[in-house]
């Protein structure tokens, strides 16, 4: 091996004496408060009085735990073959969506913008939209363009349907190219509502274009929807389970290959996704199974009403009981028995939970995330004997609160929990200080509050920017339960070892 260059990152580099001294000298003028004052203030922010003031806050959001609608719409668009997400609005939003998704999945993310500027704000964005379509077809050769709006286009009231009709009239947009579109202003909803709006539009557009009439139950196939899912591994796990059943199925909105493609030596804009021609056929399926609810409301409503589909929807199936329900639903909809191998798998995972139960039992947890994910997490924590205490859901609504509370009531371990929908991570910080817990579960954004509260963060959900490959492992199904269990218990063991005095630094745990 060649000589290894010793490269230090800024963690180590700026700990060197010379840099530490430099910063200390600088501090002389920048921190006029005394160290005591700083400590006192910090302590004050941990008090009940401060928490009350924090919760009385109505106007400002501090450290948000949600992204906006078009981000979800981009994810939905990338669930289909050769589809280019096309965002109508000023250009910065698109750059944010691309970075956001790229940072989570560690993959390139194609998406284009109509790059509206001041003149578009005054005269409307039609020209930008038409020129944009012409350019992107020439540059990226998509088979479908999925258009969504940003708040800017919504505020000036651009009429997408009229603009697209004009684009077709001008001959810029080929007659046969499907262009689903969704109105996704950021001033309502969040990334999950945007996902829903775009997915619904894709299904509707492709179905209408086909000219078919739905014949629900005509096919044996199932429709499967995973929703706004940050885990490509969940798609693989879903396929594996359905394969074990011997079920035939169509995943509607399969973004897993676009967000988890191989390094083959050739970059492509499009790596996969649900084939477009599968969508109209899906209207004939035996039934539809969705493993998210809050991010699929409009879509499932459409499938029920227009396609006459038999729809079954559950929240993210995390843990044993939720997976049991999932398998029962697959069995019911497909008319097939639950395979023996999955039953054995269940027994093995339950065994694993027993192996680890002592370390998890009674651990108090705080969690933040999207509604479907939280319902799944609450259920799994209760099974593990962990006690959910603070549940913060920025994009949760009344229905979510009720469902979460009902679930918590079903177990003595849920007795202490409070559900905070519409709150942010600064609220969470107050909760962590006023009523301390052992662990936090959530996205990377929760790391700041968790660090201050000196508790480990179990990274589950979206976005995860600061850990690698978690999204490649499934968290749904029995196998997913094992993955989460492994992550949970080993983090707790890591912390124990870190804190262990010599006499308790044990070999066997």
């Amino acid at each position: 091996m060649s000589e290894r260059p010793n490269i230090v990152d800024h963690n180590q580099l700026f700990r060197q004496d010379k840099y530490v001294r430099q910063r200390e000298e600088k501090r002389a003028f920048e921190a006029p408060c005394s160290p005591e004052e700083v400590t006192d203030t910090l302590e004050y922010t941990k008090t009940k009085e401060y928490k009350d003031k924090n919760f009385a806050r109505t106007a400002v959001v501090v450290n948000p735990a949600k992204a906006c609608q078009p981000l979800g719409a981009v994810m939905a668009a990338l669930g289909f073959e050769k589809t280019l997400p096309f965002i109508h609005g000023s250009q910065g939003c698109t750059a944010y969506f691309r970075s956001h998704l790229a940072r989570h999945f560690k993959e390139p993310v194609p998406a284009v913008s109509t790059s509206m500027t001041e003149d578009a704000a005054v005269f409307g964005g039609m020209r930008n939209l038409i020129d944009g379509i012409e350019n992107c077809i020439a540059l990226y050769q998509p088979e479908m363009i999925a258009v969504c709006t940003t708040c800017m286009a919504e505020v000036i009231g651009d009429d997408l349907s009229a603009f697209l009709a004009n684009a077709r009239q001008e001959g810029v947009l080929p007659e046969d190219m499907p262009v689903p579109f969704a109105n996704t202003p950021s001033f309502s909803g969040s990334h999950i509502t945007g996902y829903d709006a775009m997915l619904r539009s894709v299904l509707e557009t492709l179905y209408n274009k086909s000219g078919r009439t739905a014949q629900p139950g005509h096919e044996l196939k199932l429709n499967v929807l995973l929703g706004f899912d940050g885990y490509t591994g969940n798609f693989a796990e879903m396929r594996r389970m359905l394969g074990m059943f011997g079920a035939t199925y169509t995943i509607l909105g399969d973004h897993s290959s676009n967000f988890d493609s191989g390094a083959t030596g050739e970059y492509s804009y499009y790596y996969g996704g649900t084939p477009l021609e599968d969508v109209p056929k899906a209207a004939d399926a035996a039934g539809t199974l969705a493993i998210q609810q809050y991010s699929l409301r409009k879509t499932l409503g459409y499938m029920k009403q227009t396609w006459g589909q038999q729809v079954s929807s559950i929240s993210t199936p995390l843990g044993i009981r939720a997976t049991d329900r999932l398998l029962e639903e697959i069995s019911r909809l497909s008319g097939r028995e639950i395979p023996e191998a999955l039953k054995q798998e269940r027994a093995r995972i339950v065994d694993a939970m027993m192996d680890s139960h002592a370390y998890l039992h009674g651990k108090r947890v705080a969690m933040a995330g999207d509604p479907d994910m939280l319902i799944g997490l609450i259920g799994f924590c209760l099974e593990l004997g962990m006690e959910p205490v603070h549940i913060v859901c920025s994009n949760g609504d009344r229905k979510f609160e009720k469902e979460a509370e009902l679930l918590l009531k079903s177990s003595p371990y849920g007795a202490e929990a409070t559900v905070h929908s519409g709150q942010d991570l600064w609220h969470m910080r107050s909760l962590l200080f006023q009523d301390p817990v052992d662990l936090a579960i959530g996205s990377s954004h929760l790391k700041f509050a968790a660090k201050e509260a000196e508790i480990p963060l179990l990274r589950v959900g979206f976005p995860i920017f600061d850990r690698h490959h978690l999204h490649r492992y499934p968290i749904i199904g029995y196998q997913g339960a094992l993955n989460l269990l492994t992550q949970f218990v080993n983090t707790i063991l890591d912390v124990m070892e870190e804190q262990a005095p010599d006499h308790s630094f044990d070999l066997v745990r």
Partner: protein
Amino acid sequence: MEPAVSNGRLEVSCGNKIPKSTPCPRPVPGEASGGCSFDGAQITLIPIADAAHLVHGPIACLGNSWESRGSLSSGPELSAYGFTTDLGEQDIIFGSEQKLHESIRYIVSRFAPPAVFVYTTCVTALTGEDIEGVCKAESERLGTPIIPVNSPGFVGSKNLGTRLAGDVLFQHIIGSTEPEQTTSHDINLIGEYNIAGEMWHIERLMQQAGMSILSRITGDGRFREVGWAHRAKANMVVCSRALLGLAVQMERKYGIPYFEGSFYGAKETSYSLRQMAYLTGDRDVERRVDKLAAREEMRLSLELEPYRKQLKGKRAVLYTGGVKSWSVITALQELGIKVVGVGTNKSTAEDVSRIADRIGDDAEYIPEGGARQILKTVRSRKADMVIAGGRNMYMALKEQIPFVDINQERHKAYAGYDGLLSLAKQLVHTLQHPVWELTAKLAPWEEETEFAD
């Protein structure tokens, strides 16, 4: 080399020297584009670490962006907090000025920052909120500067946003405070954002030469400190043409001479330090800089020796924003690397002419974004690596091309003499990784079929 001192000759606008790139390009519809003016303004001002930064708009602008820059602070962290008014439909219909009033009051009463920056977004610009009025009223009421930043996304590119942020600094902040003491060797660094702590390298070098930074604009900056920038002896515009306008304005109003420079590469570093020393007008400082530069360059050349050997003749495609497009070229050339392709997408005409000075026609200019174009250049020019930022990283890796991150998310500082050494090590490290060997060879079963043929 560039003219040392401007006499106000350069205008705020982009100029019109052409080659191969139009100045300040307007965003093109239908392309995968870069950031917007809001983004540009935010990244320019957010490094002012003790201030609160409040985004007045729907969740989009902050929800997708908070805490994602690599600007480091040596003390306060308030600017890392994500504050937004998170407007909903009702706010759009009935107006959100009251919500803004309350948000500002809440932030000031709970966080006691020295100032609050309030960012306009597309939505609040379109609905015609009187943000300046709200800021003015709250400044008076609270006795804390509340500073409006009028740079909604739709006005243009990221580059324009940094310029608008420069205007904000000039109009609202610079000249608002007085330093406790000044020396005749006080320099402002303008357009240095302390990515991965680079500014700390530079600051040390300046200290060693007997110079000091009066105001950091804005990397690791503090609000009060930016306020007294008008007392400096000279301004250095570091790696950002976008804030050149600020330097021009400061020269006109306060008579502070400025120059443009970079700290990427030993030559550029020495040059920048010499310019600073020259502008302080102190012969003694100049001599110290000369000694320092000679000593550091000598030391560096010894330490670089083994890495240069490994990098000599390697070919790179550089795709990065604005000024780094030319300044990094010098650094790479010093390491013996040939730049065979360079992105000019976010460069101004001045930047492009600097690129041309350094590599002439030897390299391919990539004026437009898009992964295809970069990859085509890599293939056609037989490049060994891509040096770019996060959004292009994964597409390079898909093509199994060694990649070095030069933009805001990296954790390694490449500025100054030590920085060049770090860059050299990083490049060697990247090129040596065994994974490239893995990708260069076929899988065994594929090899066998080849033999069979």
